[in-house]
């Protein structure tokens, strides 16, 4: 019984389901992250309070743990898929040409864009979560001045450049990922598949423009 | 001439009760004993797959063999139109009796009444079985099965799955086969060619096969052998058959004593895409339904090479509409085919080779609009354009008849057993149900009737009563059969001549098409009987078969088949010469009515011609099974 269960969990479709669910959850995280970023443009204190409340809430550890699990599941499954898919055809083609009617740049580069995103996230955590500590006091409560850190970080144009670059990579990744996740979860349909693809693309454009806008906003606003 | 072995074993009693009574009278094998019997099935088309799975379901051990890489590739897959059954769902007056009657009449009164009645009887069970297997037949909006009228039938009795009915039925039978393979009741041998039949004590007890991948010969022992290896249309080189379709299994059984019946009964299909040149490897059929809306014509002037647009209406001869005003373009297959040949012979053929006639949709498009025509025939038009690079919406299609189906085959009795005890022959490989001409949508019906419902009843009856002795594959009969086929392969490999196998096959095809084709006459047939032995002689001295017998050697496979085709071709010509009447697909120019219709001679030829092999180099003996019609009145066909 357990063996059978293990087999089911390891099956190709199950892996795709993991990939799809974790991917979609990460997309919802992106939306949450975006909402947080919006506060940056509203008011520095508000942004700092939000950040402070987020990190001082004891539930943050649970949330972070879940996020890490989802993220690792996505990464590990993605790597496993890639390795298995590579070995599914050990004798490579002498010549292989795409039909031009199926595979897209995004769909064929998922593992590469994925690895770049992973690298970006590590850097992103180092830049901000583990970046320089500036203190501030809001309504008498001492807290980290994350707003200042962000503002200073994006004063450097190179940072803006590679952050926007990373967002483009992320956009490419989700432009295939969102639709692909729905397909893997069995939601493809003769009529609705095309809508799903459009939704995926809109989401991708939103991700690129939305997140990039913050960096430019930070630059225009200037540092302290 | 004798009738000794030719006991049709048709049960007595009224025709409606024969099969049921026979089923009751036949011996049964106790369910627990069935696993002790082994049955070999050669061929995995409709008949083979369905027989193999049905016998395995009953509990027999079945070994199934096919030459393709998968049973699903058998040529049944290419049938387009549909499958007949006497369901009478449309309430338009159909019945088992009518289907029986139409089939006997369509076969021009050269089939065995009792067999045909049984075919009509079980036709309904076939549809039930296929639907239960998950075959997605066409349906109407209420969810019920749709029917259409096919091949000029007066009732709508044809079930269909788009233009791919054969494919769907075969995949259904194949799925049943694979179900039993997964249970271990069928052992499946793919890429395996039967090269010899093995007989012990005068009974079929096994086969020798050659593994196509490594050339290994294998011995297979069984209690009964079923051949379901299809027809022999490729004797003509160009036909609508698949490249691997061949007569070898049935013909090697013939050499071992299984009589071959009515070899000259071949069917020509009128709406095929014409050959483009000498390089043509096979012909492609387009559904006959095209004749419902397309109008067939040729230019009135001989050798008129002007483009269609320059030929005015008055200069066109819609010859079928002219000669057959009441049936017009919908005359039966053989009539349409012969008329096309006549036009081309008279120099009015069109296209680069002059061997085609126009099938024009201009008027249909004008009348119904492009969209309607596209909805009906879109996929056929696309196929035509892909092959010819001509757009049939703009210029008329060009069509020409091609060999399509062979009604003749191994002689079998009512139980589908050949003259060799224990050797059963099903589907197109036998001669049984279509007489001298097959109705449209009846081939699929017969294949599945034989495989699902007839053989699974008659083969056990044989097993229960045969009293077979114990044997092993070490028996000397296996040794002899293996040695002789090995010798044949070695011989072929060692000739090392100048001409390729295809050279000979094309040469044979030309002779056959010329003299044993759509219209035959004594002079031509005699010429063919002179030409074919010459081809044979040269073949065995001058063929070039490269490679060895221990590896994939497609030329060696082909060579063995062509050698058999040459011998069968001779038999076909001989049979055609002896049958001095016209009936169905067999048209003797000497025997025609004033209106150029086929004229039967029921006095002299109301019989099955079954040929017995008398040994290499000796003339075969003709045996006759007289056909008695108690239920059907013999009439002369007229389509005027």
């Amino acid at each position, binding site marked *: 019984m357990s063996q059978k269960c293990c087999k089911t969990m390891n*099956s*190709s*479709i199950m892996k*795709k*389901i993991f990939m799809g669910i974790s991917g979609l959850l990460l997309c919802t995280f992106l939306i949450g992250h975006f909402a947080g970023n919006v506060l940056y443009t509203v008011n520095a204190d508000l942004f700092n309070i939000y950040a402070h409340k987020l990190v001082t809430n004891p539930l943050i550890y649970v949330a972070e743990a879940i996020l890490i699990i989802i993220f690792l599941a996505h990464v590990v499954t993605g790597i496993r*898929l890639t390795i298995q898919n590579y070995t*599914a*055809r050990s004798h490579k*083609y002498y*010549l*292989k040409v*795409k*039909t031009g*009617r*199926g*595979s897209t740049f995004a769909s*064929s580069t*998922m593992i590469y864009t994925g690895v770049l995103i992973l690298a970006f996230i590590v850097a992103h955590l180092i830049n901000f979560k583990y970046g320089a500590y500036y203190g501030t006091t809001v309504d008498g409560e001492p807290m980290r001045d994350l707003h200042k850190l962000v503002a200073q970080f994006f004063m450097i144009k190179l940072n803006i450049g590679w952050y926007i670059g990373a967002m483009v990579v992320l956009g490419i990744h989700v432009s295939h990922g969102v639709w692909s996740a729905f*397909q893997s979860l*069995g939601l*493809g349909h003769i009529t609705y598949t095309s809508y799903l693809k459009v939704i995926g693309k809109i989401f991708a454009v939103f991700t690129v423009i939305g997140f990039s806008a913050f960096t430019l906003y930070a630059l225009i606003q200037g540092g302290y | 001439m004798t009738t000794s072995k030719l006991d049709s074993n048709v049960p007595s009693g009224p025709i409606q009760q024969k099969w049921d009574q026979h089923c009751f009278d036949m011996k049964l094998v106790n369910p627990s004993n069935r696993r002790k019997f082994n049955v070999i099935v050669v061929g995995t088309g409709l008949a083979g797959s*369905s027989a193999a799975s049905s016998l395995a379901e009953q509990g027999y051990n079945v070994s199934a063999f096919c030459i*393709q*890489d998968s049973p699903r590739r*058998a040529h049944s897959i*290419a049938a387009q139109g549909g499958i007949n059954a006497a369901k009478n*769902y449309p309430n338009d007056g159909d019945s088992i009796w009518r289907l029986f009657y139409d089939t006997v009449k369509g076969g021009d009164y050269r089939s065995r009444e009792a067999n045909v009645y049984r075919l009509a009887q079980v036709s*309904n069970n076939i*549809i*039930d079985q296929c639907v*239960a297997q*998950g075959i997605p037949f066409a*349906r109407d909006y209420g*969810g019920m*099965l749709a029917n259409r009228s096919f091949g000029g039938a007066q009732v709508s009795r044809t079930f269909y*799955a788009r233009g791919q009915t054969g*494919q769907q039925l075969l995949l259904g039978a194949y*799925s*049943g086969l694979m*179900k039993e393979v*997964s249970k271990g009741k069928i052992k499946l041998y793919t890429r395996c060619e039967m090269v010899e039949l093995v007989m012990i004590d005068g009974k079929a007890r096994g086969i020798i096969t050659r593994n196509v991948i490594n050339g290994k010969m294998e011995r297979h022992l069984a209690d009964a052998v079923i051949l379901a290896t299809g027809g022999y249309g490729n004797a003509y080189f160009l036909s609508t058959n698949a*490249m691997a379709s061949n007569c070898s299994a049935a013909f090697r059984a013939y050499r071992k004593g299984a009589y071959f019946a009515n070899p000259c009964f071949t069917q020509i299909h009128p709406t095929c895409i014409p050959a*483009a040149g000498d*390089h043509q490897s096979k012909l492609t059929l387009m559904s006959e339904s095209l004749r419902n809306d397309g109008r067939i014509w040729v230019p009135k002037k001989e050798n008129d090479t002007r483009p269609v647009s320059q030929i005015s209406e008055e200069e066109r001869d819609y010859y079928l509409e002219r000669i057959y005003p009441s049936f017009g373009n919908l005359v039966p297959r053989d009539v349409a085919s012969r008329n096309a040949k006549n036009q081309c012979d008279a120099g009015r053929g069109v*296209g*680069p080779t002059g061997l085609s006639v126009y099938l024009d949709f201009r008027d249909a498009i004008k009348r119904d609009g492009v969209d309607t025509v596209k909805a009906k025939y879109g996929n056929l038009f696309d*196929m035509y354009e*892909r092959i*010819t*690079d001509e*757009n049939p919406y703009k*210029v008329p299609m060009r069509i020409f008849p091609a060999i399509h189906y062979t009604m003749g085959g191994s002689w079998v009795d009512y139980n589908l057993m050949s003259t060799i005890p224990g050797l059963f022959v099903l589907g197109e490989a036998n001669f049984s149900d279509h007489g001298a001409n097959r109705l449209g949508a009846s081939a699929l019906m017969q294949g599945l009737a034989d495989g*699902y419902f007839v053989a*699974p009843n008659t083969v056990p009856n044989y097993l229960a009563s045969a009293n077979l002795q114990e044997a092993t594959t070490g028996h000397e009969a296996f040794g002899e059969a293996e040695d002789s086929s090995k010798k044949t392969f070695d011989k072929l490999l060692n000739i090392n001549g100048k001409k*390729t196998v*295809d050279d000979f096959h094309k040469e044979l095809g030309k002779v056959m098409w010329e003299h044993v084709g759509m219209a035959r006459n004594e002079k031509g047939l005699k010429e063919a009987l002179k030409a074919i032995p010459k081809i044979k002689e040269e073949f065995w001295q001058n063929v*070039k078969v*490269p*490679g060895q017998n221990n590896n*994939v050697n497609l030329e060696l496979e082909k060579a063995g088949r062509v050698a058999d085709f040459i011998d069968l071709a001779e038999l076909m010509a001989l049979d055609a010469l002896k049958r001095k009447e016209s009936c169905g697909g067999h048209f003797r120019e000497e025997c025609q009515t004033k209106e150029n219709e086929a004229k039967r001679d029921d006095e002299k030829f109301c019989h099955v011609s079954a040929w017995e092999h008398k040994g290499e180099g000796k003339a075969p003996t003709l045996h006759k099974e007289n056909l008695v019609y108690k239920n059907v009145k013999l009439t002369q066909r007229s389509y005027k």
Partner: protein
Amino acid sequence: MGGLSDKKITLNLKIWRQQDGIADGKMVDYRLNDVKTDMSFLEMLDLLNERLIREGEDPIAFDHDCREGICGACSLMINGQAHGPEAETTTCQLHVRKFKDEQTIVVGPFRAEAFGVHKDLMVDRSALDAIVMAGGFITVATGNAPDANAIAIRKENAELSMDAAQCIGCGACIASCPNAAAMLFTSAKVSQFALLPQGKIEARERVRTMVEKMDDLGFGNCTNEQECEATCPKGIKITNIARMNREFIKSLF
């Protein structure tokens, strides 16, 4: 408008030659003159083979049978694409007129871990039979069927089922998939039965056993690249894959 012509061209062929399943293979160059543009691609190979035989060389082995696009026997990677460059066209229905004079054409076998090469361009695709054997059928013994019209089936479902059932089992979906996944093939069979009431009884077991078999045979995982759909000579849609995923999820509960 095209139409038949006497045009002849010269082709430079690069063809994979491999003696048997164990031997190493290599690409071999052939120059073929006087190729009529009205020839089918396989007739062009026939022409080359006839020449090779006359020259005492081993002809090229390739799978083919019906030559009318329905049996699924023909395969070949032609200039890097399964069944060549034309959409919804099998190799046997591809014609030389689609190529140019003096064009180089690279011809190789379908590749996947689950497919072995028997010889030259001839490939072992029995893995597809193994997938069908794992559950690609409805368990109904002969004689066991109710009247064909006893169960009404919605026309739309029957049509969708037929769309999926048209699969010819050629394996082009696998050959063209960057991952050598067999999802389109497997899902076509699963879909055909999932859409029909007759197939629903065994639906859970069917999808599980077929997917399990597909994985065991060493086919890759689907990453929704859609090359399978793009290359399928019968136009089978990846919505069938979504349906199989759905069936798989349903089978978990």
